[in-house]
């Protein structure tokens, strides 16, 4: 149970003179649920971009299943089993909702270079896509263009696309950001369901701390790019450093 799946060692990235992520070393066990919290500009999303390969670190390394993946492209990491969703909604605007998810399913099934058969031939891709859309309560919108969705719906689509990849690791970047309050529980429900299946490792960035505390196995706190604390939700709640960071009392020297 406690085999480590993702590990970062002294992970650092600098933009010009600014150190966005500063020597973060963590280890995430298999099937673990980890949340990353921290104030704005703490480097949470940058840390995610390092994990998913959108950015490559200035220093340090990332291990996945014991394999060094520091130099892997995002495509390769997805195929290895690290999928992510984006905080800034990142879908295919002029394609239908169904097509957005179908592309993810197609990738998951490894159908990459088939040129001369019609895409509708793969009927099960579509049924599977609709299943995913149902899970995130978006199946009624399957024929709309993605750009015509409301913001919260785009977030749901984003999650459906990530789930459709069926990767071992799910990196969720503020999945509920920008959703209306009524929609949030549904999405949390989806995340809870995936967690209960018990075969996924989830790393999640969230602003609304209270919502994810009972879901998380552990919580890590980033502050000015540094790992401030890492522990069970309870430990984090009681951590004075964290409290002052969130209340704004802590200043970097």
């Amino acid at each position: 149970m406690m085999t480590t799946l993702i590990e970062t060692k002294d992970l650092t990235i600098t933009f010009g003179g600014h150190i966005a992520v500063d020597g973060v070393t963590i280890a995430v066990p298999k099937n673990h649920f980890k949340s990353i919290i921290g104030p704005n500009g703490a480097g949470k999303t940058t840390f995610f971009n390092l994990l998913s390969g959108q950015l490559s670190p200035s220093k340090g390394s990332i291990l996945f299943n014991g394999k060094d993946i520091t130099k892997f492209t995002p495509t390769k990491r997805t195929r290895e089993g690290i999928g992510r969703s984006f905080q800034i909604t990142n879908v295919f605007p002029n394609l239908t909702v169904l097509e957005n998810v179908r592309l993810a399913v197609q990738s998951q099934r490894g159908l990459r270079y088939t040129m001369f058969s019609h895409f509708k031939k793969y009927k099960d891709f579509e049924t599977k896509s609709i299943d995913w859309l149902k899970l995130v309560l978006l199946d009624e919108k399957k024929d709309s263009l993605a750009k015509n969705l409301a913001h919260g719906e785009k977030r749901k689509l984003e999650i459906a696309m990530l789930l459709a990849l069926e990767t071992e690791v799910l990196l969720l970047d503020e999945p509920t950001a920008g959703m209306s309050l009524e929609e949030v529980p549904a999405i949390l429900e989806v995340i809870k369901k995936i967690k209960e299946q018990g075969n996924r490792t989830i790393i999640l960035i969230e602003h609304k701390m209270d919502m994810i505390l009972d879901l998380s196995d552990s919580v890590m706190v980033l502050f000015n790019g540094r790992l401030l604390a890492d522990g069970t939700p309870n430990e984090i709640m009681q951590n004075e450093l964290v409290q002052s960071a969130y209340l704004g009392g802590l200043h970097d020297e």
Partner: protein
Amino acid sequence: MKWTYNNRANAIYFIIAAFLLLLPFVHDSRSLFILLTQVFIFSIFAMSYDLLLGFTGIVSFGHAMYFGIGAYAIGVFMKRYEPTNLNFVLAILTTILLTAIISFFVGLLTLRLKSHFYAMLTLSLSGLFLVLAEKWRTLTYGNDGFTFRVPEILKDRTDFYFICLICMIAVFLILSRFTNSPVGRVLQAIRENEQRTESLGYQVLHYKIIASIISGIFAGIAGILYAVSLRFVNTSVFALDITLDALLMTIIGGVGTLVGAIIGAGLIEFAHHWLTALAKEHWIFERWIIFFGIIYILAVMFFPLGIVGTLKSINWKRRKKPDVKKEEKLAG
């Protein structure tokens, strides 16, 4: 709903194709057939360009190089060797091989160069071919070009009309199949959001190369037909005008729709024909390119989706309107 719409579209295509196939039997105007043959040839060229521009979102200003390679391949083969059917086939194979190799490397360059940088690079590459065609006098006879004889089967204008029409229909069918294949869908995803396509686990570069090669080969075939229709080839086949024609045709017809490329090609070729005919009436029509410039600006400003795209969006809005309202209510 969607099915009936598709069926209606297919029926219209079928009727038009049948009409064009039967036309030579009921009508007998040489100049019209020559004009229509040009339309078919440029339709193939424009569709191949649309695969890059409209489906994959790659802007290339060097598409004329494939066109020119095809034109020169057939010209050189027919001039140097006997104009037999075998040599004709060899010329086609040479074109396919050459365009495939070159478009492979040009496709590779999309890895490093994005949007306008890539456009500039392809522009200079096709310029390179233009210079090559000018300077390699022993093979190309320089700027003046050369005439050549064509195999027996291509001699008759009506037969050639059928050959071009069938080629166009075949290219249309192949490309509509291709754009609706799993690979084709990924191409459209790349056009929409390259980064996201990558993080879905697709190797974006591979797809761009595939699109580049297929588009290059069809452009080369269009070049072959073009040279055969004139029985003459000179450096103008490598000129920027050829690429600009394709750009104009796809944009006016509708980016990202194969039918749009055909309609655009027809419109431009016919407009070209009529405008130059009007030159007898007034000198300004000799500068017909001025009118194309104006049409182009107006099209980009008022119909950025092109003819087919605009028609589609009107249809779509009408059907979806109730939906949009519902959405607004929900949001409110």
